[in-house]
C-alpha cells in the first residue's frame, strides 16, 4: 500500500518533503512520551492546506491510516502513527497570517509555535493566553488537538476558550472552515468539539485565536510552608476568599530539592512545600489581592514569603517551577509523569494517599502541580533498583485515586495511546459510544489517527462501498456493536 502511496504524496508535496529513509523515519517514532514508539511507514511535510488535503485524499484512496503531528511535544503518544501509517507533520506551516488587534484575533498556521503568537501580539499590547510549559516549541495546531492548558489556565482558560475558528482538512480530504472567528457562528459548535479531539477528527490547517490584553500589573509571590498540607490549606483559603489568581502552583520537598540542585532557584530553605501564586489584572486590584494572599499564606503557616519586584525576580521564582520535570530527571534514573485531576478540596486527601503509597512501595514520588485547578503531576521516580512494572502500577494507582475522588485521568496531556485503558474507568460504555458517534460523523472510515483515546473503536456503519457482513473486529470478538 505504502509503495503505491509514495508517488502520489510526492506529487503533492515534492520529493524533498517526503521521508522514506528508515533512519530518518526513526526520528519520528515517538512524541514527548518516549515509552510508546512506532515508526511510521512514511512521513510527509506539506506546506499548505491544499497539500495536506492532497495527502489525506491519497491516504484515503489507498486505505492507509494517517496521523497529524505538530512539534512532537505531546505527552500521551497522541502523534504516533501506526507502522503502516503516514505521519503528516505540520512544522513547515508556520506563517502568522494576520494579527487584528482591534478584533483581538490572530490567524495562524498550525506549525506556528505557541510563544510566537504572543510575541507577534506583544507590540499591540496583547498575548495568547494558553501557555503550556512547552510553549517555546509546541505548535498551536498541537495545542488545538490537545486542548492544551498551562500554568495560567486557572484564570485565563484553556485552548478551547481561545479558539474561534478552524480551517481543517476532514478525514475525507476536504478543506472546511469550522466557525467564522467571531466566536458566535451559527450551528453546532464544531470548533469546540474539534478542539481537544487529539487529532482524530481531522487535521487543522489554519486557526483563529483570541488575543488577551496584557495585564497592567502582575505580581508573583513565593511562599514556603512546612508541609503540603499547609500549602493546600492556603490554596483553599485563597479560593474561598474569592480571589482568582492567574496561577497557583505547588511543589513538594522532593521536587524542590531537585529544582534546587538543577537551577539553584533559592527557594526557602527547609520548605516541605512551596507555593507560587501569580496575580494579574488592573494595578489596584492586584495590589489588594496580593496583600490578601500574603495574609492568607501567613495565617496558613507560611514561614517565608517573597514577592517578585520585577520581571527578573519573577523569572527566578518561575525557574524553579518550570525546571521541575527536567530537574527530577537528574535525581532519578528515569521517571513517569502523571497527569491526573482531583477536585481542589480533595488535594490534601489525595496527596496523603500518594505519600502513603510511595512509602508502602518504596518508590519515590515528587509532586509538582497546578494546585488552583487540582491538576496533579506526580513524578514517579525510577531508581536503578526500582521495578518498572511496580512504578507503572503506582502511576496507575494514582489515576484510580483521581477517579475515586471524582476527578479526571488527564487534565492537559490527553489520552492518546497512553491512557486508553483508563477511559472505561472514567466513562461507561454508552458514554464512550456516544463520544465516538462524533468520530463516526467526521471519520467513518476510522483512518484519522486510529487507536487513540478510545480502547474499543466504534463501528460507524454505512461507509459507502464498504463491507456488508459482520465487521471483522466483531467477528474476532475485539469490538462491540453498541
Amino acid at each position, binding site marked *: 500500500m505504502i509503495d503505491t502511496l509514495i508517488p502520489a504524496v510526492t506529487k503533492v508535496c515534492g520529493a524533498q518533503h517526503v521521508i522514506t529513509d528508515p533512519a530518518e523515519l526513526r526520528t519520528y517514532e515517538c512524541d514527548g512520551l518516549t515509552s510508546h514508539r512506532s515508526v511510521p511507514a512514511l512521513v510527509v511535510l506539506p506546506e499548505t492546506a491544499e497539500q495536506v488535503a492532497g495527502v489525506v485524499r491519497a491516504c484515503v484512496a489507498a486505505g492507509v491510516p494517517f496521523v497529524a503531528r505538530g512539534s512532537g511535544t505531546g505527552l500521551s503518544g497522541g502523534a504516533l502513527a501506526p507502522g503502516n501509517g503516514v505521519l503528516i507533520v505540520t512544522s513547515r506551516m508556520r506563517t502568522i497570517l494576520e494579527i487584528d488587534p482591534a*478584533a483581538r484575533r490572530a*490567524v495562524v498556521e498550525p506549525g506556528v509555535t505557541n510563544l510566537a503568537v504572543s510575541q507577534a501580539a506583544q507590540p499591540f499590547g496583547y498575548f495568547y493566553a494558553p501557555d503550556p510549559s512547552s510553549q517555546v516549541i509546541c505548535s498551536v495546531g498541537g495545542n488545538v488537538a490537545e486542548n492544551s*492548558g498551562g500554568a495560567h489556565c486557572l484564570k485565563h*482558560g484553556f485552548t*478551547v*476558550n481561545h479558539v474561534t*475558528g478552524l*480551517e481543517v482538512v476532514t478525514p475525507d480530504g476536504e478543506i472546511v472552515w*469550522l*466557525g*467564522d*472567528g*467571531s466566536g*458566535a457562528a*451559527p*450551528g453546532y*459548535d*464544531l470548533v*469546540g468539539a474539534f*478542539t481537544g479531539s487529539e487529532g482524530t477528527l481531522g487535521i487543522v490547517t489554519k486557526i483563529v485565536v483570541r488575543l488577551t*490584553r*496584557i*495585564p497592567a500589573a502582575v505580581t508573583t509571590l513565593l511562599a514556603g510552608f512546612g508541609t503540603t498540607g499547609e500549602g493546600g490549606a492556603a490554596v*483553599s483559603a485563597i479560593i*474561598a476568599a*474569592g480571589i*482568582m489568581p492567574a496561577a497557583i502552583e505547588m511543589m513538594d520537598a522532593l521536587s524542590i530539592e531537585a529544582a534546587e540542585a538543577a537551577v539553584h532557584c533559592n527557594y526557602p530553605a527547609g520548605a516541605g512545600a512551596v507555593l507560587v501564586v501569580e496575580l494579574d*489584572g*488592573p494595578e*489596584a486590584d492586584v*495590589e*489588594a489581592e496580593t496583600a490578601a494572599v500574603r495574609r492568607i499564606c501567613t495565617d496558613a503557616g507560611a514561614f517565608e514569603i517573597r514577592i517578585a519586584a520585577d520581571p527578573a525576580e519573577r523569572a527566578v521564582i518561575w525557574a524553579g517551577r518550570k525546571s521541575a520535570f527536567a530537574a527530577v530527571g537528574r535525581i532519578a534514573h528515569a521517571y513517569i509523569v502523571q497527569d491526573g485531576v482531583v*477536585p*481542589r*478540596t480533595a488535594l490534601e486527601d489525595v496527596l496523603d494517599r500518594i505519600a502513603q503509597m510511595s512509602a508502602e512501595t518504596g518508590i519515590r514520588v515528587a509532586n509538582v502541580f497546578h494546585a488552583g*485547578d*487540582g491538576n496533579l503531576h506526580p513524578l514517579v521516580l525510577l531508581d536503578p533498583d526500582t521495578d518498572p512494572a511496580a512504578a507503572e502500577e503506582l502511576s496507575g494507582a494514582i489515576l484510580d485515586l483521581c477517579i475515586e475522588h471524582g*476527578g*479526571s*485521568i488527564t*487534565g*492537559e*496531556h*490527553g489520552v492518546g495511546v497512553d491512557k486508553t485503558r483508563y*477511559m*472505561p474507568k472514567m*466513562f*461507561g*460504555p454508552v*458514554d464512550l459510544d*456516544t*463520544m465516538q458517534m*462524533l468520530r*463516526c*460523523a*467526521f471519520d467513518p472510515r476510522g483512518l484519522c489517527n486510529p487507536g487513540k*483515546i*478510545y480502547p474499543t473503536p466504534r463501528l*460507524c456503519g*454505512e461507509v459507502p462501498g464498504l463491507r456488508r457482513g459482520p465487521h471483522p473486529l466483531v467477528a474476532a470478538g475485539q469490538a462491540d456493536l453498541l
Partner: protein
Amino acid sequence: MTSQPAAGGRAGPPPGEGAAAGAGMAAGAGTAAAAGRGAEGTAADADRGAGGGTGADADRGADEGTAADADGGAGGGRGADAGRAADALAAACADLRPAGPADAVAGVLPSWVAAPASVAEAAATMRVAAGLDLAVVPRGSGSRLSWGLPPRSCDLVIETGRLDRVLEHAAGDWIASVQAGVSLDQLADVLGEAGQQLSLDVPAPAGAGGGTVGGVLATGMAGPRRMRYGTPRDLLTGITVIRADGRVARAGGKVVKNVAGYDLGKLYAGSFGTLGLIAEATFRLHPVPAASGYVTLECGTAAEAAAAVAAAVESPLAAAAVEIDRLAPGAPVRVAVLVEGSPAGVPQRVTGMRELLGDGAVVADDVPGWWGHGAAAASDSTLIRIAFWSSALRAVLDVLDSAALAAALEPSVGGSPGAGVLYAAVDSLAEPAAVAAFVAALRAEIGRVRAAGFPPARGSVVVLNAPPLVRGAVDMWGPVPGAALMRAVKDQFDPGHRMAPGRFAGGI
C-alpha cells in the same frame, strides 16, 4: 466489555426500513402517534402497566397540519392506535398530559407533554418515544421555544420543569451540578449564599426570569458579561444527556480541567434540542465580584460609539462588559461599561474609564435601566443576532443604518460589541418583505465571503425569532460554515431525525 441491548432500544430499523416507513407516513393522514412497529418496540415498557393514563386524544394530533418529515420518518403518523402510544408514554412518565394550544412549538402543536421528574424517567420517556418514532422537542421554561425554525413535526414535548434539583454545589471547588430544569434565578439564589455565581447574565424581558439551565444551554445564550466569562460552552465542565434513542450518556466531569474524551458539552451547547435532551449539567463558577461600577456615555454618531467601545474594550482597565443600545437608526447610541473587581480597585478603574471615554462620560453606581433589557430581550419582535469581528463594529453599525433606511425599518439595536455580538429587534408588524430585504442587506456586508479569506466570512446574521409571516419570507439561519459536517453529526446522534427536526441551522 460486552454489549447489551437496552430495554426498549430496539427502535432503530435499518435505514431503508425507516425511510420506507417515513414515506408511508407522509402519504398517510395526520400525525396521530403510534404504529404497530413502534408499539411493538416498547412492549416491555407498556407491560409495566399504564399508570396515570391520561387519555391522550388521538384525534387531537390529526389536524395539526404538521408537515411530515419525509426524510427521517418522524411524525409518528401511521394512523394506528394513539391510545396505545399514550399508554406506553404514560407508563414511562407519570406526568403525561395531552398538549394544549399553549404547548405549540412555533405554531406546531404536539400531541402530548411529558414532565419527567428524574433522569431515569426522562430516559424511559425518550426510549418510548424512540420506539414509537415520535418527534420530540425538549422544553425548559419555554421562553425561547419559538426561536429557530418551526419543527417539521412535533408529537411530544418533554418539559424539564420537574428536573429541578441543584444536585451539588461544591463551593470549595467552584463547581455546581444541576438538573436541566433548574431556573437560573433559583441557581443564583443557591450560589449567592456562598458568594458565587454562574457567570451568565442572560438578557430577559423585564419581569421574566432568565429561563432554565437546560434552555440557556440549548440556545447558547449569554449576556453582557460574555466578554469576560464567555458563553455557556465556556462555563460547562460536564453534561448528562439523553440520546435520541433514550440512552443516558455523560461527558466531561466535575473538575474544571479535564481533557479525557470528546467534550460533548460543546456539541450540545447551542444545539437547540436537535441532538437529544440535556438532563444535567456541571458548571464552573466564579466569585460574585466584591465591587462593581458603570460608566455611561451617550454618543451622537455610530463612529463616536465605535471609538468609545474600542477604547473601553482595549483598555487594561479590564472592563467586564461593554454594551451599547440604540432605540432607532439615527438615535443617539448609549454606551455603558461595567467594571468589576475589588473594593479597592474598582473606584480607581471607574474613574480611569470615565477619563478614557472623555467628555460626557459619567460614573453610575447602578446598572443602567436598559442594561440587559435592550434589543436582545425583545420578546415579540423579529429578533436578529449579528456576530462579527469586533474590529468591524463601525461597519456593522453603518450597514445597520443603511439597510434599515433602504427597507424603511426602524430596528432597535443593542448588545455586546466588545464580544462581537449585537441584536436588532424589528417591529413585529413590519412587512415581511422589508424584513427579508433588511436581513439580506446585512448578510451581504457582515457575512460577505472573501475569496481566499481566512476565514472566508467573518460574521453571521441569524434571525432567532420572528412572526410566522416573516419566517416564511426569510432564511432564518443563513449560511452556516461546516454545514455538511453538522448534518453528519445529526445523522449520527439522531438517525431518525426525531429531535426537534428542522428547527436548527441548515434544516437540521
